[in-house]
């Protein structure tokens, strides 16, 4: 069974972390993954850096620019991840933008992911209609779960549609924002968490964007299955170095 599906069945709230591959240094990828697993993180999004990350705030933009400057490429990331399943057993998701995947070749990309043992893909700018028309069959052939996003503005009808198309979890964007917001959650956000929980979707939800500490993690997982932290983690390793993963995870739970 796909590791994401297995993880979603566990009776606990899931903590997932995002980091940009190739940052702070080009060869930090495996070390960061190992530390994340040892710190008890449930799932990881490995960010494939892109020159023009539209959905991201300044922190992830800057880490992406630095990673590209360090020489990170799609092939480089895959070669770093070869053999990773000998030691890393938690679900791994590749998160990025669609153009690098398209240039690598969608089928070749998916095939490499399967060989490595990647469980899922998040491509925010690959929309549902394009995915279903062109790429769904390829993702499925290589056993990859495609993760769809919803936001507070997504209509109920659209949510139902995305839920039906989803085979893993739904990535719930906490508010109308790019990544890295730190203002905490408003009452409107809590209402949104409750509203989505009450829809009884077949897919469980994991909340992302704006989760930075224990308080926001708890708020996000009151009604949902888990939460993803990205920018706050990147800020932490920028400040404390690539070997400081455990000291960040300890502050969350």
């Amino acid at each position, binding site marked *: 069974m796909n590791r994401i599906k297995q993880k979603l069945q566990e009776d606990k709230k899931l903590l997932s972390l995002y980091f940009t591959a190739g940052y702070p240094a080009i060869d930090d990828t495996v070390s960061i993954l190992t530390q994340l697993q040892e710190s008890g993180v449930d799932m990881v999004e490995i960010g494939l850096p*892109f*020159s*023009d990350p*539209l*959905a991201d*705030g*300044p922190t992830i*933009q*800057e880490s992406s*620019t630095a990673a*590209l400057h360090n020489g990170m*490429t*799609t*092939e480089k990331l895959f070669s770093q991840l070869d053999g990773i399943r000998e030691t890393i057993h938690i679900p791994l998701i590749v998160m990025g*933008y*669609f*153009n*690098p*995947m*398209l*240039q*690598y070749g969608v089928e070749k990309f998916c095939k490499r992911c399967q060989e490595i043992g990647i469980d899922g893909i998040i491509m*925010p*700018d*690959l*929309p549902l*209609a*394009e995915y279903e*028309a*062109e790429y769904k069959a390829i993702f499925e052939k290589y056993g990859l779960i495609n993760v*769809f*996003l*919803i*936001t507070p*503005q*997504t*209509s109920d009808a*659209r949510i139902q549609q*995305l839920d039906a198309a989803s085979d893993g979890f739904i990535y719930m*964007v906490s508010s*109308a*924002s*790019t990544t890295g917001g730190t203002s905490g959650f408003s009452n409107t956000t809590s209402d949104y968490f409750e509203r989505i929980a009450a829809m009884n979707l077949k897919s469980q939800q994991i909340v992302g964007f704006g989760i930075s500490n224990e308080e926001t993690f708890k708020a996000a997982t009151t009604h949902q299955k888990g939460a993803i932290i990205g920018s706050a983690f990147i800020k932490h390793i920028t400040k404390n170095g690539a070997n400081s993963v455990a000291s960040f995870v300890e502050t969350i739970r």
Partner: protein
Amino acid sequence: MQRLRRLAHNTIAMNTLEKEKSYQADERGYYGDFGGAFIPEMLYPNVEELRSQYVQIMQEPAFQEEFKQLLMDYVGRPTPLYYAKRFSEKYGTKVYLKREDLCHTGAHKVNNTIGQILMAQRLGKTRIIAETGAGQHGVATATVCALMGLECIVYMGAVDIERQAPNVARMKMLGATVRPAMSGSRTLKDATNEAIRDWINNPVNTHYIIGSVVGPHPYPDMVARFQSVISEETKKQLLEKEGKENPDYVVACVGGGSNAAGLYYHYLDQPDVGIIAVEAAGKGVDTGESAATSALGREGIIHGSKTLLMQTDDGQITEPYSISAGLDYPGVGPMHANLFRSGRGEFISVTDEDAMTAGLELSKLEGIIPAIETSHALAIFETRKFKKDDIVVINLSGRGDKDLNTYIDYFKL
């Protein structure tokens, strides 16, 4: 799969009376293989709201009336179609200039911003955002926001803000806030990214006025429709002057491609009209400092659209170069990508040097100082020969005032 989908698109297109023209966008915003809406889900409600309503709103008689009235009274349309006698004599063919440089604000850009501000009002939006490179679209957007009393925020690369101080001042005088894009290369591409991020953060009250025929569907088609007034007028004017609506060639410079889309629009499916697109070669197509997307680009995704774009082997978007800030975009609108791939359009690239020379030449021959963007289109006559009785219409997309400093530096005037 690709082919099947295209067949499906064509069937849809053929079944829809309005979309019977094959070089126009289909229902899903595709021009052949190019177009679509590759947007994150955060933008889906905004873009879907626009997509589901834009055609209907544009076809409302009240909308049409207000749009046409403003184009006439405020923009100064119709713009003249001018027979350039001395220029024609020099190159041994009949050249007409469509004088978009005489539009209010000095370029064709305002045709689109007038249309989009009316669209924004009908969608109930109260806040307007835009991106700008050289500042022409920013000024055109700030102008219509002043006209309608709407809040206006223009994103502009920090580097461009330094280079284009007079346009920054114009936008400020018009009441707009100019926000510097500090990410990436700090130019047009990054200003566009910042505008998109703003829209993600303000999904309810904000309309994004994109300045060219780029971005996710429905923008390329909507902007092309607003700019199509250029070819609509050209047809009538040519009929008066030459006794026929169709010239032998239409010529325009292409960065994103909005002035070109406007001039080509009503000729796209008239096979007797040759379409010529002129791109900026910068210092030369193979020098690494160029913006000739058709020559250097590959199929990919930029700003929500599948099109031809300049990128690394790994799919990272690269920085183009041209002396003209308005042609300095790493992609090209999907309409033009399709014109290139299908062979319907003839694509020519022109260097900085040849463009500057052509700009100076038109000034001396016709008393018209063109924008450097436009000068690229004028430069093809040195090498691309036409028959004596050919009728060639060039879109004189903008005036050269904004480029005076560049002309001064270049020619040591």
